[in-house]
């Protein structure tokens, strides 16, 4: 038996993949050392620690009902981003109909746990029976939707799957209203139940979702390190080369769709059970964008990135944006952190922040001298900011809209102008952003949330396409 050299990849790991994973860039200085030290910790211990933290938060610390609901939504989004990562991140197939699988799972559970079918008694199967059934159904649907990927790649596949997602919403809205409920949805679903156990409390659902997330991560981790995972990455990097290396490209793509669909459907069943109702609009494009924002922000291709991104996007957008005070902390905090990270040296940060503060007081004084009603309004979040610094008129809507349009123009201008002028232009931009936020954006959280989603996608793609935790791969030419 031949003795292998120490640094060669372990048996069964394809050498090219192993090398491409090695070929990451570490951060410079001490941050790189921390990164290397963290990488010494194995994957399974990390999962155990993360799970323990997840259980610790609701059980030991305790959460109020709003916080628990935010946690449930965040876990759902994390599971969905994890499933989307299989087709988008690993296999490189842009699936824009993904949210339909989530809807399929929710509607599947709804039909099997309500009075909708088989009247008068309806169907009320236990969860340990209905959820696996729905997941198998979703896997088959995933295979069917994945079939076009045999012939279509890139944009064409994206648009066909987007049609599929739209068709799902049209289908649930229009077909068989007596069974699917049409736009009114399906009500009065059973909570999760089976084997004399019934889960009705939000904390229960939180723990169920946490368990499912951990199990999915474990299963996907095993898949990732298996032959199938390597095949997915090979197909993503170069389908032609992969097929030359005898990877069954078409079958591998279909499996990616099927696994993604199964995970989405699983999340859908829990969503339906927890909400005890389903509506077609729950599964429309905005939610798809939310899932994508989570995955992209976290880093497509990285499992922990997908989970982290999903949690982060959901908690920030659903949890903090609801209340003007908290959302203001997030707003100003994100701006400050971004300034500190992106601007060098620190004197420039100080110049910009100080300049913005002074600029604000001057502008406020000038406007107040001309008209007192122009500064009379307040957003209710930090009355001190509104009364002395940011301009908020008594009737803030029109002013806020103008500020927002001006902000968009300034941001576009900011990208175009060179160095020194950019720093100068940053001051009015920040001030206008603050005015738009106080006068308008913090007042309409629902729209602001969607605006931020769009902005996240654009900014992350321009600034750091690999996301927060995605591996920065060196392009191999």
């Amino acid at each position: 038996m031949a003795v292998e050299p120490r640094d060669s990849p372990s048996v069964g790991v394809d050498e090219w993949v192993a090398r491409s994973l090695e070929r990451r860039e570490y951060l410079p200085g001490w941050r790189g050392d921390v990164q290397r030290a963290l990488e010494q910790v194995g994957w399974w211990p990390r999962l155990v620690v993360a799970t323990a933290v997840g259980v610790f938060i609701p059980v030991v610390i305790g959460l109020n009902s709003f916080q628990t609901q935010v946690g449930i939504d965040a876990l759902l989004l994390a599971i969905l981003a994890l499933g989307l990562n299989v087709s988008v991140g690993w296999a490189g197939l842009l699936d824009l109909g993904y949210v339909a699988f989530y809807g399929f799972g929710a509607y599947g559970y709804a039909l099997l746990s309500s009075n909708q079918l088989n009247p008068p008694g309806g169907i009320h199967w236990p969860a340990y029976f209905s959820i696996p059934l729905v997941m198998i159904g979703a896997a088959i649907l995933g295979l069917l939707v994945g079939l076009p990927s045999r012939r279509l790649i890139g944009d064409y596949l994206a648009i066909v799957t987007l049609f599929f997602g739209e068709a799902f919403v049209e289908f649930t809205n229009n077909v068989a209203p007596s069974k699917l409920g049409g736009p009114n949805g399906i009500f009065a679903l059973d909570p999760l139940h089976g084997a004399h156990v019934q889960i009705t409390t939000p904390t229960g659902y939180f723990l169920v979702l946490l368990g499912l997330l951990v199990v999915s991560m474990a299963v996907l981790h095993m898949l990732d390190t298996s032959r199938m995972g390597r095949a997915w990455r090979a197909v993503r990097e170069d389908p032609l080369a992969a097929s030359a290396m005898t990877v069954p490209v078409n079958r591998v793509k279909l499996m990616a769709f099927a696994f993604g669909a199964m995970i989405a459907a699983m999340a859908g069943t829990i969503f339906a059970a927890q909400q005890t109702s389903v509506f077609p609009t729950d599964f429309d494009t905005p939610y798809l964008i939310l899932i994508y924002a989570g995955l992209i922000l976290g880093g497509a291709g990285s499992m922990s990135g997908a989970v982290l991104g999903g949690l982060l996007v959901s908690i920030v957008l659903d949890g903090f944006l609801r209340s003007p005070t908290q959302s203001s902390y997030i707003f100003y905090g994100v701006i400050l952190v971004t300034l500190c990270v992106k601007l060098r040296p620190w004197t420039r940060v100080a110049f910009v922040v100080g300049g913005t503060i002074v600029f604000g007081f001057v502008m406020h004084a000038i406007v107040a001298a001309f008209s007192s009603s122009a500064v009379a309004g307040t957003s209710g979040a930090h009355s001190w900011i509104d009364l002395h610094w940011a301009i908020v008129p008594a009737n803030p809507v029109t002013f806020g809209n103008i500020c927002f349009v001006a902000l968009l123009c300034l941001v576009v201008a900011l990208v175009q102008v060179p160095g020194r002028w950019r720093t100068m232009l940053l001051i009015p931009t920040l001030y206008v952003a603050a005015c738009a936020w106080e006068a308008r954006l913090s007042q309409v959280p629902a729209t602001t949330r969607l605006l931020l989603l769009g902005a996240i996608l654009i900014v992350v793609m321009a600034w750091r396409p690999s996301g927060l935790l995605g591996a920065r791969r060196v392009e191999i030419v």
Partner: protein
Amino acid sequence: MTKFTQELVNGLTQGGLYALVALGYSMVYGVLKLLNFAHGDLYMVGAFVGYFVLQWFGGPTALAVPVPIVLLAMFLLAGGGVGALGVAIERFAYRPLRDAPRIAPLITALGVSFLLENTMLLLFGASYRDYNTSAFISFSTGIHIGALNIDIVRIMVIVLSVALMIGLRLLVSRTQLGRQMRAVASDREAAEMLGINVDYTISATFFLGSALAGIAGVMAGLVFNQIYTLMGFIIGLKAFTAAVVGGIGSIPGAMLGGFLIGIAEAFITGYVSSTYTNLIVFGILIAFMILRPSGLLGRVQLQKV
């Protein structure tokens, strides 16, 4: 027979709009190989610009100037404004990603689309706005044969969209700019080496494509009256498919695809079921894209390795 002709006219009207939007998609896809999801939203912005120009001239019931001038102003301002917006979007969002992997600009385009929709939602609210076309253009003018009515607005939409397409076709095939656009579309690097200003050409392409979408938006407002902030998403989807059906990158193809989808939709609504129109159209389009991705007039592209 009357019903058939009537549905045909409806289909041609809708098809003209699809075709105009599809042209922009096709041109942008030609030069950048980018599926610009925001294109449908530019159409929506165009409809809003037209609406506000109409209000600025005194509103549909009390116009201060003759109707043709108002219409001209609506089309010009919507076309110019949306064209400029398209150029700005390209500069800001897509240019930094020109050499990025294919998936990056696609996701940026989704983000831009979402940003545009929700900016309009923030500024103008979710409520429907009404062009109220019948208040200033009499629907009784037009062609009337027996029970068949083709009003002047529909005639205008069909004629204008065909005229714009012919103009675009001439521009692309005869002028210097058109030649540059074709050169950039076929090989950007080679075009750059030959001294073509690629950035300028791409900006010009975005301007033309977006302007067409804006004009289509005004037309949609005139024909269907109601405009709202989410009107662009589905039409963007269908227009891209129209471009694919005709063969992406081909101008006559986009026209053909747009008219075919419009007519098919009108006939399905008229003869089969109005509830399931979208579902059936989606099904046909998915089947078409799978069976013949190169389109009716497109060439099968060999993938270079």
